[in-house]
């Protein structure tokens, strides 16, 4: 009995540890994988670490994360400790009131704090970047320091400071020689908390930074679109750093205690001074470096805002060199997110939104007309991508990439007969539990509406209701998985037979897994265009046009489409890709002849809300 109980408790412990550490272990192992896959370990290699070190974007993000975390830790620890000390001496009413107020930022959802801070910085006209991120981090770290230091202060004998002063210590000496040593555990705990909070913060950092300043979290978030094992290498390094810090925090006191018995107090005192001096130097270095990073150079600066993983980063460096300028490159996760940042007054010169969003931006007068005479490479553009409904005559936009949405299928599992059913194959019980839907209301309703033979831009509520019923029926009979960008990696590994994907992603998957093929149903699909536009407030109009022109240059367009995998709008690159990298990969060539294909039209709020509500219901069960 006793033995059984012991076994069970050990088993439970082991289970806990596996649960905690297995994910970390997987990350560490796959950071040494020689191939890109996250599911097959093909051999040991350090290539992702090399990639990491040579990736200047990641390295600068590491720099931002570390310095912001260190500075905000030091500053918020000082502020928080001072506040806790002050509070313990203030009147009861004030103290309790302030402690309650102090809890608000802790309990507040990050997203609320993030938006508030973003609005604050916008309204006072503070340019977003390193300093706004630092200020935001200080503001959300300080309450944690207060909550961890205050109980320690309260537990002190209130006469301790008096006793020190009674013995001749000035108030400052009483603080440093008596009070601080006694509350040190609380201060340390607060500082550690502040550091981790700051180091891994994503939401707040994402909203309050800008102008190309990114921390590790933002970079990783932007990189998740294409599974990139460089993240694993980065994560592994972060884990190692944290383990080392934890070891130091736990082991140093033990060593120090052992030494304390042998050393006299004089040298200990001196050592403490050295540590203090070293810390002060570190802070100064960080500050200086931060200032340097914030105010780099006096060159012309172009602010570009594009979707994540949607450009070959080398091209940005190339542009900077050729035009002797600085490109501040920011990425967004969705068109809607871009719109939010833009409308909050953030400065951007060149944006790369999608068709329907361009329509909206034109309507709301965010854009300025393109000066086509400055676009020397305009003749290289394919006629198929020009003069579309979202911007007739291309007054405001220059195409960037284009494509369709279709069905990616495993040719070893899905017969050509089945796939020719088009969208209806998604209702074929043969593939129950064996397919991915795209977790997006826009794309899912497009599929349902097209399957039913309606327009995807319909405003007819009856048709929308039927599409909703179709999605519900499909959900209940087919058990689809509603996936995001993880579908890319899963389909490369051949995890399911069918998936709804964008053509560019399909090209990439097909180039990695030859069993996969791409089909655009004859019932029609979403034909989409992403295009470059120049904002009305653009401060470098000439440079913005030069950038757009640069992206259309034959060699640049080819490099970009090769890197990203989406279909080029430049004829030479488009043709070259079909002969080389994506030879025989049909997904690279959008089906522009389908009579039922449509481009998304900007939806007004009411209809958008209806779609959003219905989609929530679809996903509810």
């Amino acid at each position, binding site marked *: 009995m006793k033995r059984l109980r012991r076994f069970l408790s050990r088993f439970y412990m082991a289970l806990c540890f596996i649960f905690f550490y297995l994910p970390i272990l997987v990350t560490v192992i796959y950071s040494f994988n020689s191939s890109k896959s996250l599911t097959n370990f093909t051999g040991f290699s350090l290539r992702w670490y090399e990639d990491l070190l040579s990736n200047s974007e990641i390295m600068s993000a590491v720099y931002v994360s570390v310095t912001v975390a260190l500075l905000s830790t030091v500053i918020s620890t000082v502020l928080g400790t001072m506040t806790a000390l002050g509070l313990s001496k203030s009147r009861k009413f004030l103290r309790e009131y302030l402690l309650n107020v102090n809890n608000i930022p802790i309990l507040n959802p990050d997203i609320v704090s993030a938006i508030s801070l973003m609005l604050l910085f916008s309204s006072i006209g503070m340019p977003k970047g390193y300093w706004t991120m630092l200020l935001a981090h200080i503001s959300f770290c300080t309450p944690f320091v207060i909550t961890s230091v205050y109980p320690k202060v309260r537990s002190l*004998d209130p*006469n*301790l400071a*008096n*006793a*020190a*002063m*009674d*013995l*001749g*210590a*000035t108030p400052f*000496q009483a603080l440093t*020689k*008596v009070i601080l*040593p*006694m509350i040190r555990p609380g201060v340390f705990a607060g500082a550690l908390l502040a550091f981790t909070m700051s180091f891994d913060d994503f939401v707040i950092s994402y909203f309050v930074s800008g102008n190309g300043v990114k921390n590790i979290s933002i970079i990783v978030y932007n990189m998740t679109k294409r599974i990139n094992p460089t993240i694993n290498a980065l994560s592994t390094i972060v884990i190692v750093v944290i383990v080392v810090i934890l070891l130091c925090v736990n082991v140093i006191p033990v060593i120090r205690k052992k030494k304390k018995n042998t050393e006299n*107090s*004089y040298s200990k005192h001196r050592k403490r001074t050295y540590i203090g001096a070293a810390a002060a130097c570190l802070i100064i270095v960080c500050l200086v470096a931060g200032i340097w990073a914030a105010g780099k150079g006096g060159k012309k600066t172009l602010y570009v805002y594009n979707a994540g993983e949607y450009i070959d980063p080398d091209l940005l460096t190339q542009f900077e060199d050729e035009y002797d300028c600085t490109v501040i490159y920011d990425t967004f996760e969705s068109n809607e997110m871009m719109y939010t940042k833009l409308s909050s007054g953030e400065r951007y010169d060149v944006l790369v939104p999608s068709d329907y969003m361009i329509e909206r931006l034109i309507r709301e007068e965010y854009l300025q007309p393109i000066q086509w005479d400055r676009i020397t490479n305009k003749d290289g553009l394919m006629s198929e991508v020009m003069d579309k409904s979202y911007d007739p005559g291309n007054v405001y936009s220059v195409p960037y990439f284009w494509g369709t949405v279709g069905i990616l299928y495993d040719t070893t599992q899905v017969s050509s007969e089945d796939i020719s059913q088009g969208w209806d194959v998604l209702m074929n019980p043969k593939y129950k539990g064996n397919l991915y839907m795209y977790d997006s209301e826009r794309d899912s309703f497009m599929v349902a509406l097209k399957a039913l033979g309606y327009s995807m831009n319909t405003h007819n509520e009856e048709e929308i209701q039927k599409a909703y019923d179709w999605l519900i029926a499909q959900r209940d009979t087919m058990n689809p998985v509603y996936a995001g960008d993880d579908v890319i990696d899963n389909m490369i590994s051949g995890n399911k037979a069918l998936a709804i994907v964008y053509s560019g992603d399909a090209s990439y998957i097909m180039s990695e897994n030859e069993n996969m093929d791409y089909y655009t149903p004859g019932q029609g699909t979403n034909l989409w265009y992403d295009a470059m536009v120049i904002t009305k407030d653009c401060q470098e109009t000439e440079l913005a046009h030069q950038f757009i022109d640069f992206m259309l240059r034959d060699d640049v367009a080819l490099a970009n489409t090769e890197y990203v995998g989406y279909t080029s709008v430049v004829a030479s690159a488009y043709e070259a890709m079909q002969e080389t990298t994506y030879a025989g990969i049909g997904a690279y060539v959008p089906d522009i002849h389908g009579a039922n294909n449509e481009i998304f039209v900007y939806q007004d709020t009411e209809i958008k809300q209806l779609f959003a509500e219905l989609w929530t219901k679809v996903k509810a069960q």
Partner: protein
Amino acid sequence: MNKLIELKNLTKNFEDQQVLRGINLDIYENEFLTLLGPSGCGKTTTLRIIAGFEEPSDGQVLFNGIEISKVPPYKREVNTVFQKYALFPHMNVFENIAFGLNIKKMDKNVIRQKVERMLKLVGLEGFGSRDVTLLSGGQQQRVAIARALVNEPKVLLLDEPLGALDAKMRKDMQRELKKIQQEVGITFIYVTHDQEEALSMSDTVVVMNDGEIQQIGSPTDIYNEPENRFVASFIGESNIIDGIMIKDYLVEFDGFQFECVDKGFEDNEAIEVVLRPEDLDIVEPDRAKITGTVRSVTFKGVHYEILVETSARTYMIHTTDFAPVGREVGLLFGPEDIHVMCRMGGY
């Protein structure tokens, strides 16, 4: 003896509450002075003003004739022993005692010698490297005293220093404190609410109540000649009786006239009489003017506490004689046992 500290018309308000209402007090060199009173009487506030932790709302604090009420505590030549000792838990015994000397940046060898001497004075030789949090209450108390005295202050302030000790330990420490005071030869200002402690250690006792000084005097004066009802009832137990001073050396209460040793009141002035319970003797009824019935008897160790009900009131008597409940007895006392004081309202 020279005046060391003078408190002149000291008042202190906390928000809208007045805790000191005009304190005037002279403190002399080498004096063991005790501030005695119930909690909330202002004795600790007075001490904290002398130490410099509080600033008086009005009035003066003179130290050797110099006004110091705005001087911060770390510049005053006084040191304090706190109620709960306020030792620094992150330092050992030696480091605690050496704290003040280290602040003054004294030579390490001098510090070592001074600390050793102090440890010897308070009977803690060899305790230097002990962790203060692991010491007993009495030992912590000695460390606190040593930590204050090592700075050679002109005045040592003690804020209810024995409050946290048990009864036996408290007795020992009382003796010890008195001995230390005589050895170092400096002024001790001692705050307590324990009248026995005050009477057994002090040269001078200052009885305080409600922010005012009630009486200043030697322990015997305070005990034997309480100036008012408050002092009489706070110092020991008393029978306090309304009476009339017929003329010098003659007082009337409970319907009888008694000879007494007091004079200087107006004829027929309403006064109060204090009769200490231990000054009353129980005798046969025919031997005394005041008679009554024994209502209760409690054994207190050295004596019995007997309550006798007379026609006018109930008297408390402390006596080694036993009288059973219900017996008719007489209460006997001499002229020197009657203490006459001014009648005052409020108590």
